[in-house]
């Protein structure tokens, strides 16, 4: 009997690709099925995907990362009125199965999980996180990917299931007890792992690693940013930067926000909202009295990376950049972070234009 087999976290199984569509359908028991969907040429977003054939699994990155499910660009905190006091919006009970999340994004969610349960817990994030089921799928990097040097090319936590493409089959890893239940739901579709599958798994890992094109040394970054604090690199980038915030909006770990009150005309009621904010905006470090701590674009850019690299490392023992390449892919001014990192660490620039 299948149910007698103890799986548990860390268990592995093999899913033949011919059953992938059925496997995907079975996941629908656990929540609404979502995944990367090609909207038009050049545009892939995470969104509802009823069947396996709707998924764009060969695409490297979506425009917005997973955070949009956990922390929407603009959300109501609560409504307020002199009559009813504070009324919080109802919590959606719906669960979502997000399929096809790449290792960089899984690592980013794992980091957001830490940030939102750290000194100042974020109950809205936590509630949404508990209803988001993550099924990871591995990928082959493109010219903007640098998750390997950032140490985010594999995921050890933050997923319920993880699928690695090993040719005719997927190598399935269980990451949570829920993942175990999800696997059991498709028990008739999966089979035991044989030695050949393990070999294929490592072969895939080698192939993947070879596909990374850029020479970066993430271990030296924090030090190099401090050493190169007055480097001309920052001014160079500051001149090009449009302060448009595309990099922060699409960054899977950026989670700064602003809180605003929208008061109705009766002056007795309104809504408190929070919306994404980002450190590339001139107002970000503007304080009462009109002083701006980072009035120059170059200093804002530098601060962004000091936070991602130095501060995250100090506070969470891991880098705040997972190397997903979205900031490069989305920058209208073609600023390339790989190039910035290479320059700041004194390496030869290997990056292509953004």
């Amino acid at each position: 009997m299948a149910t007698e087999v103890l799986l548990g976290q860390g268990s592995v199984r093999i899913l033949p690709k011919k059953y992938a569509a059925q496997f995907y359908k079975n996941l629908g028991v656990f929540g609404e099925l979502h995944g990367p969907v090609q909207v038009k040429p050049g545009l892939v977003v995470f969104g509802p995907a009823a069947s396996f054939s709707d998924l764009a699994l060969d695409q490297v990155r979506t425009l917005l990362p997973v955070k949009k499910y956990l922390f929407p660009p603009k959300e109501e905190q609560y409504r307020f009125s002199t009559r009813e006091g504070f009324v919080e919006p109802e919590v959606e009970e719906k669960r979502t199965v997000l399929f096809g999340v790449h290792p960089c994004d899984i690592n980013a969610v794992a980091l957001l999980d830490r940030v939102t349960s750290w000194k100042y817990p974020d109950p809205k994030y936590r509630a949404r996180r508990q209803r988001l089921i993550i099924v990871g799928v591995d990928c082959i990097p493109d010219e903007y990917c640098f998750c390997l040097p950032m140490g985010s090319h594999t995921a050890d936590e933050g997923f319920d299931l993880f699928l690695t493409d090993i040719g005719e089959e997927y190598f399935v890893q269980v990451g949570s007890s829920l993942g175990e239940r999800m696997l059991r739901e498709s028990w008739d579709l999966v089979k035991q792992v044989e030695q050949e599958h393990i070999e294929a798994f490592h072969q895939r890992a080698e192939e993947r690693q070879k596909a990374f094109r850029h020479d970066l040394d993430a271990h030296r970054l924090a030090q190099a940013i401090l050493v190169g604090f007055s480097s001309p690199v920052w001014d160079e980038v500051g001149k090009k930067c449009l302060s448009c915030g595309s990099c922060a909006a699409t960054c899977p770990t950026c989670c700064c926000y602003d809180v605003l009150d929208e008061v109705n005309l009766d002056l007795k009621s309104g809504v408190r909202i929070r919306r994404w904010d980002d450190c590339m905006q001139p107002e970000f470090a503007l304080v009462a009295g009109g002083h701006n701590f980072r009035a120059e674009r170059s200093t804002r850019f530098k601060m962004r990376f000091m936070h991602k690299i130095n501060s995250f490392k100090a506070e969470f023992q891991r880098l705040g950049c997972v190397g997903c390449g979205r900031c490069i892919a989305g920058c209208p001014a073609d600023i390339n972070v790989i190039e910035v990192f290479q320059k700041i660490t004194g390496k030869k620039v290997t990056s292509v234009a953004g």
Partner: protein
Amino acid sequence: MSKPKVGIFGLTGCAGCQLAIINCEDELLDIVGAVDLKSFVMAQSNNEETEFDVAFVEGSVVTREDEHYLKEIRSKSGILVAIGSCACFGGIQAAANDREREDLLQIVYGTKENFYEARKVAALHEVVKVELQIPGCPIEKSEIISGIASLLRGDTPLIPTYPVCLECKYKENLCLLKERGDMCLGPVTRAGCDARCPSHGVACRGCRGPVEEANTASEYSILLEKGYAEEDIKRALRTFAYATELKEKL
């Protein structure tokens, strides 16, 4: 507390911003309930020549008459709010501000005679002191309503200080500038429109005027690199805000 006395006025422009206020159909009663609307020629009769706590002024200063009228409104008003991109930055009528009036009169009317006492186009703040600006072509319904509510509360209205790109990214639109090579002015244009045009596949033309600290130089060189002619880029950037912000840069 008595309701603040409000006047809504128009100088030279298309009157679309005043119309945008009238178009606040669901909230119109709330607006007229919250304020004492003393003058709004476009919408009501029996307008009073009186003092105003707040004056909302649309359009830009294009004629001597505009200039006198604006100064008169200013002298009678506590707070003067420029509404719309004409009032804030000069608008479309300022696009030819680098040319002599005489030449323009010759082209348009076939004579150099200045019947209308046309002058170099100015945004309101170039002529009188302006306390607040609500940009847009036309202004956004939501911004005028929340703007009035903020003023009633004694706050300054919340007008986005970030560019259209951010709202465009939030909506997960394809980047028209980067992916399609369109002449999109989103990176240098103030948000608040919810990236309306790019969401419909149309490049941003900058109708809400320049965002704070707009990096026009970078936008310019990006467009040059994409193969656009200098004159076309300048013309696009001048469309809505040539009277003020972009005058120095172009």
